[in-house]
């Protein structure tokens, strides 16, 4: 590390806020996508806004790239350090700054955990709606950067729908206030633009979230099906009936069995697929909807429909779903999690095709996903110690994402492009679209120092890919995840 640069950081940060020893840097070498690893030059853990601003200004002066980091649970390598860069951890920005129950909002620092917000406002009968499965660990700043979703997005929206304001530092240390405690702020909707920008446009240093009133009652139905296709059709039937469930999740047989072995949720292990359908609202409303949904499910071919008998059973039903990833992790040495989203009408067709690909590649797939939003999470099971399996899993994943784009969907619904899906993004965007994204990046960060190389592939990279495609050669593939 350049000594002037190091001296400048040392002069700015207290000793406990600057890590430069190899051993101390190690824990930061990857995020939730641990196949990609890189130790950074240094890790800065500022405790104040002024320190964060100073770190950015020093990095700008010395032309050192900066990777913001929340809790490091990202699944696409967004927080992967750069060898010649600094990691700016927001872990010490971990305070809830204010709760305004009458205006149903909370002001929090970016390092606050997602679940901690709902816990802090529970006493007011309020909660923060987006609930990623990682919510006990992931930070709200990371949620903003990824536009994270959860099992309740269908009715309550993604992170972008549940924010009111951000405070953001640009690379030159300027503090911007985007949005407000009031609705529909004047000017361009930079709040939407910042959300999901994967740390490339600015560093989020404060978040004002919208809070919702806890519904009077929430109830979950579990329906079993003899095929994934009928389960997929049942999803369309529920929505076609004019019902908007709070959550509508599907699991296939492999994930049902894995989850059942893991958390004993009481799932029907013989079913080809199950749907979990949560209904919430006023007591009377929920009762009415339960009856309606039961009827729809049976006429759509459900072999069994159960209603959680009490809150404990409801939590059990959800525990199986929320624990599905780790559960699958127990039945396979490795798995590779995909995140494509498709128009729901193609659900049955895409699931069938994934099944065929699974046979073709000789790799098992567990499907567990946000069926209501058409957001698929096929988990490709493989063993990285078997020669060639990693590559097969990667190719299989690429085929799935291509299929998603073909039917009018996207390569990532909520996990982000990061470094992992840069090649997949080439298949989704034209050169003009990518150039437009780069121009937007330059409007915020002309020096190109914030998380460079992530989220938007270079035109060069995509051109290379295209060329390789024509030659029919093997695509360059990075090492696959083991988590």
């Amino acid at each position, binding site marked *: 590390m350049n000594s002037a640069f190091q001296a400048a950081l040392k002069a700015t940060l207290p000793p406990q806020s600057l890590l430069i020893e190899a051993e101390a840097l190690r824990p930061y070498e990857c995020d939730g996508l641990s196949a990609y690893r890189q130790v950074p030059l240094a890790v800065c853990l500022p405790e104040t806004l002024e320190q964060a601003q100073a770190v950015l200004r020093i990095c700008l002066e010395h032309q050192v790239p900066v990777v913001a980091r929340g809790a490091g649970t990202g699944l696409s390598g967004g927080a992967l350090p750069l060898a010649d860069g600094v990691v700016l951890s927001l872990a010490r920005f971990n305070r809830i700054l204010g709760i305004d129950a009458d205006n149903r909002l909370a002001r929090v620092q970016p390092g606050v955990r997602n679940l901690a917000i709902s816990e802090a406002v529970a006493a007011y009968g309020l909660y923060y709606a987006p609930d990623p499965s990682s919510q006990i660990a992931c930070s709200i700043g990371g949620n903003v950067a990824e536009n994270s979703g959860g099992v309740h997005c269908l009715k309550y929206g993604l992170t972008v729908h549940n924010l009111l304001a951000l405070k953001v530092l640009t690379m030159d240390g300027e503090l*911007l206030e985007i949005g407000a405690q009031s609705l529909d702020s004047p000017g361009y*909707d930079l709040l*939407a633009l910042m959300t999901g920008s994967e740390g490339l446009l600015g560093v989020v240093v404060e978040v004002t979230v919208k809070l919702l009133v806890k519904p009077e009652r929430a109830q979950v139905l579990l329906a079993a099906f003899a095929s994934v296709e009928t389960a997929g059709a049942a999803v369309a039937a529920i929505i076609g009936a004019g019902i908007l469930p709070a959550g509508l999740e599907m699991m296939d047989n492999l994930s049902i069995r894995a989850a059942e072995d893991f958390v004993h949720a009481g799932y029907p292990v013989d079913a080809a697929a199950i749907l979990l359908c949560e209904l919430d609202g006023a007591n009377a409303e929920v009762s009415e909807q339960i009856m309606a949904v039961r009827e729809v499910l049976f006429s759509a071919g459900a072999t069994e429909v159960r209603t959680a008998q009490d809150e404990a059973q409801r939590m059990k039903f959800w525990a199986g779903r929320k624990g599905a990833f780790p559960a699958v992790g127990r039945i396979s040495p490795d798995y590779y999690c995909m995140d494509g989203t498709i128009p729901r009408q193609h659900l049955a067709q895409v699931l069938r095709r994934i099944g065929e690909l699974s046979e073709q590649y000789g790799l098992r797939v567990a499907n567990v996903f946000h069926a209501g*939003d058409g957001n698929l999470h096929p988990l490709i099971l493989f063993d990285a110690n078997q020669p060639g399996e990693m590559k097969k899993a990667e190719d299989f994943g690429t085929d799935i994402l291509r299929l998603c784009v073909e039917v009018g*969907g996207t390569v*990532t619904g909520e*996990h982000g492009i990061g470094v992992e899906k840069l090649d997949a*993004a080439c298949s989704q965007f034209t050169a003009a*679209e990518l150039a437009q994204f780069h121009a937007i990046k330059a*409007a915020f960060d002309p020096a190109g120092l914030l998380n460079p190389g992530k989220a938007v592939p270079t035109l060069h990279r995509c051109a290379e890919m295209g060329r390789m495609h024509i030659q029919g050669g093997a695509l360059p593939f990075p090492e696959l995840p083991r988590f």
Partner: protein
Amino acid sequence: MTTESVLINRVRQAIADSTPLCIQGGASKSFYGRTCQGEPLDVSGHAGDIRYEPSELVLTARAGTKLSEIETLLAANNQMLPFEPPHYSPGATLGGMVAAGLSGPRRPWGGSVRDAVLGVKLLNGRGEVLRLGGQVMKNVAGYDLSRLMVGALGTLGVLLEVSVKVLPRPADERTLVFELDDDIAAARQIAWGRQPLPLSATLYEAGRLYVRLSGSAQGVQAARVAMGGEETASALWAEVREQTLPLFQTKQALWRVSLPAAAPAMPGENLTEWGGALRWIVSDEPAESIRQHAAALGGHATLFRGHDGMGEVFHPLPPAMLALHQRVKLALDPHSLFNPGRLYQGL
């Protein structure tokens, strides 16, 4: 030649001639914002090609498609645009709806225009056609430039096509009215806002608080019993949305003030919507003092009607934000072709 290629050619010609363009859909919201200086570009002919599958909860159409046509189609399938957009005249188009970014009475509960936009096809200032966002509920590939178009008043490009999320219409809807003094009405709304009630609109004017409930028949009935009040006609919501109420016919300056819902009253408030989050004020007070007052309460003020289109209509941005807006504008429209000055002077 398709209507799309006509528009592309017009924009390419405008680049070559350096002529700024004033994009116009149905001209239903031409009063909104500052006056645009440039040649008119009529996009209302680029209409139709509606793709709509009710069970997907998504509708895609060309930007010149009439809002009335879309809403009729949705209603026939028992669905709706959740943000209840104002038309203001029969010519209102889908693209204009996105560009203006105005949402109606359901906004705090059903979300805004930008909440529902899933993707757009955009003709940028380089004459390129871009697909931004998509037709699915969740999509985090690429920056969210489609939502950036909402409320940009056409300053970033020509919208060619829009995909929006739609929702089932509530099974039941009822309107209640309460006779209340303003401070009690405000307190009541704050209290209701903290309860799980199926609210979908509020309006307070001259001692009367109107509340709309939407949901399942039983849910609405339960809330109706719990809340009291008298039942009344529901035509009111269209009148406030379309601004046909007498208040909006004023020749004086009409201010649209967005505040945190529980913020205290501004001087001279005439009508309150959105559970307190939107206040309409007819006033001859200097713009500066109205804006300062709104900002002090955590909000902002728009000079909605009754101005000459020359001064600032929207709440002025701090210098760093304005500079960023200018850079964002140039990233999409490098020759400053589209709707110059419509949103802010110099943008």
